[in-house]
């Protein structure tokens, strides 16, 4: 799960050389426009456009991208089913009676659900665009520039560094347990998992103490250096993003009342 984390993909992204600010502007701009759009057109358009950008010039593997999109499907599926039955408006297209419960799906509910689905699609892809093209290390720099409290950013950097170390430990402990036939019965599985978590907690704590030492050895006085340089803002790519976002705004204005379902 973590070996194939999105951050390592971002480290190798074909868009790595583009200024992080430019990328964030594109992704966050699209995200906000998708979110406030009352019609499904903008999210659909933006989702498809960004996907093509990622798969085309971004050289992302389509198989991997597909898997990524399917990830949240379970949550969406379950929630949409609830929404379909609950939301109202319009005329009923399908009705059934389960025991005493009257269940109906109305055209209004379908229309609403489609809008939500499209919004999830558009917004998620905007989020994926950030995570697949901009490594955390670049984001930390951006956060510092954006005046996010320095303690918070420092803590995030330490967390980022240690996530990989602790994960490796977790995997090793898990392997050792499985090799000795751990997790073989449900009750025993809970026990094994608790042992793993406890061990991990203790080794994390000692790792934290070692970190204090390591920082002391380097004369720590409260400064976390930032990355030496980030890619400069390039006018063409920046303008391209501005033009694209303006276009998206235009589409938003034109399709305020568009619906895809009667």
């Amino acid at each position, binding site marked *: 799960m973590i*070996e*194939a984390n999105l951050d390592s993909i971002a480290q190798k992204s074909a868009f790595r050389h583009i200024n992080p600010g430019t990328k964030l502007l594109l992704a966050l701009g699209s995200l906000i426009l998708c979110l406030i759009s009352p019609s499904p057109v903008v999210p659909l358009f933006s989702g498809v456009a960004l996907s093509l950008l990622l798969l085309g010039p971004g050289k992302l*593997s389509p198989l*991997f991208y597909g898997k990524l999109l399917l990830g949240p499907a379970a949550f969406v599926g379950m929630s949409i089913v609830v929404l379909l039955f609950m939301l109202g408006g319009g005329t009923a297209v399908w009705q059934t009676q389960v025991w005493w419960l009257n269940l109906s799906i109305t055209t209004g509910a379908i229309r609403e659900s489609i809008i939500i689905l499209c919004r999830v699609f558009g917004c998620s892809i905007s989020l994926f665009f950030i995570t697949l093209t901009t490594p955390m290390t670049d984001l930390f720099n951006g956060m510092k520039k954006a005046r996010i409290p320095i303690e918070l950013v420092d803590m995030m950097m330490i967390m980022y560094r240690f996530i990989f170390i602790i994960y490796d*430990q977790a995997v*090793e*402990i898990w*392997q*050792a*347990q*499985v*090799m*000795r*036939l*751990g997790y*073989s019965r449900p009750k*025993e599985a809970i026990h094994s998992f608790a*042992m*793993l978590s406890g*061990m991990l907690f203790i*080794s994390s704590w000692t790792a934290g103490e070692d970190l204090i030492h390591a920082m002391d050895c380097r004369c720590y006085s409260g400064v976390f250096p930032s990355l030496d340089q980030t890619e400069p803002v390039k006018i063409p790519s920046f303008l391209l993003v501005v033009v694209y976002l303006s276009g998206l705004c235009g589409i938003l204005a034109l399709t305020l009342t568009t619906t895809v379902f009667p």
Partner: protein
Amino acid sequence: MNIILEARDVRYRYPGGSEVIKGISFHVRKGEKIALVGPNGAGKSTLLQMFNGMVRPVSGVMLVGNEPIQYDSASLRMIRKKVGYVLQNSDRQIIAPTVYQDVAFGPANLGYDEEKIREKVTHALQHVGLEGFERRPPHHLSGGEKKRVAIAGILAMDPDVLVFDEPTSDLDPAGSEDLMELLDELNQEGKTVVISTHDVELAYPWADRAILMLDGRILQEDVPEIAFGNQKNVRKAHLSMPMILELSQELERRGFIEPGKKPRSILDIIHSIQKVATDSQQCKKLGTITVCNVDRSDDVSIRTWLESREIIAIGAMGTRAKQRAATEHLTLEFTYGVIDKCILRALRGKDSLILTTTRMVDRVSQRVDSYCQESSVSIQVLQLQGSEPDPQTVRSEQAVSKADNSKM
């Protein structure tokens, strides 16, 4: 010998990553000692983890006991019971709050009853020399002791094959030597032992066969003398040539030892030099080697026996032998490479005593025997036994016949 592990053109790639095992075929015979050597990142650990089904190759077949590994959970349980795996880092493997609980983890998951679990744990702890440690918390143990607990945890499941990932990393030299000796003991009991390591000095004298790995492929696979003797491959695999081998190549180039001889120990190299230099002028009286089986001589006081001898050096082989030496307060001269060192002493006309366990007694005579045959000398191997008042006169049948053989 039967093939117990086999890989047939196995390949592996991390999900969404690059290929780490790029087509490997080889086999391990029952009772062999195999060393898998290569630089960090060569794929050694991944390959080892295929043996017990922790890693499933994306193509190719892994066989255990001539049966392809099935990856359903029942078969995997069987495989993991058969092929025990000891992780590099004992701290990741030992996680229960006490030594007993940790060693009992495997047997408990095999569904044994209390009685049997206790028996297995006691036996396993005895084996690694940690009786009495049952209630200790593992994080208060030394590195070597932790390693032994980790091994006991695997032994308690009674596997046929033992796989060790970097067994001697983090151990100090004495700890490493002890561990290699333990591996030898286990091998003598019929376990097949596979280790991965980058300590060529340890692997060279120990292994029956060495497999050089680089970048997910096998570079060379042969007896250690050949596998480690190829300067080009050794360099390619980011290893160093074993000191002994490097020295012998230099000596050979200068004609101090016969060409083609590949010494595996200091004894071998001394012998080779001696042979060329003096061409067997062994005229002086040789020393003797007395073997004391600590498993059968509980009633003898070694100390008393020693008092009646002149200056003698004592070596101990095996965990129990060392414990015995400690309880009798004997100062040990040799604790590793014991037989060779005693032969070296004997060649200089001095006597020595080896404390060892039943299983290793034969090892001594075999080694001395083979040395004697090769170099046409005759070193007496005596046995110190409980029932006999003066062991010096009682040469065991075996030792006599061996020594006689060597005189031929």
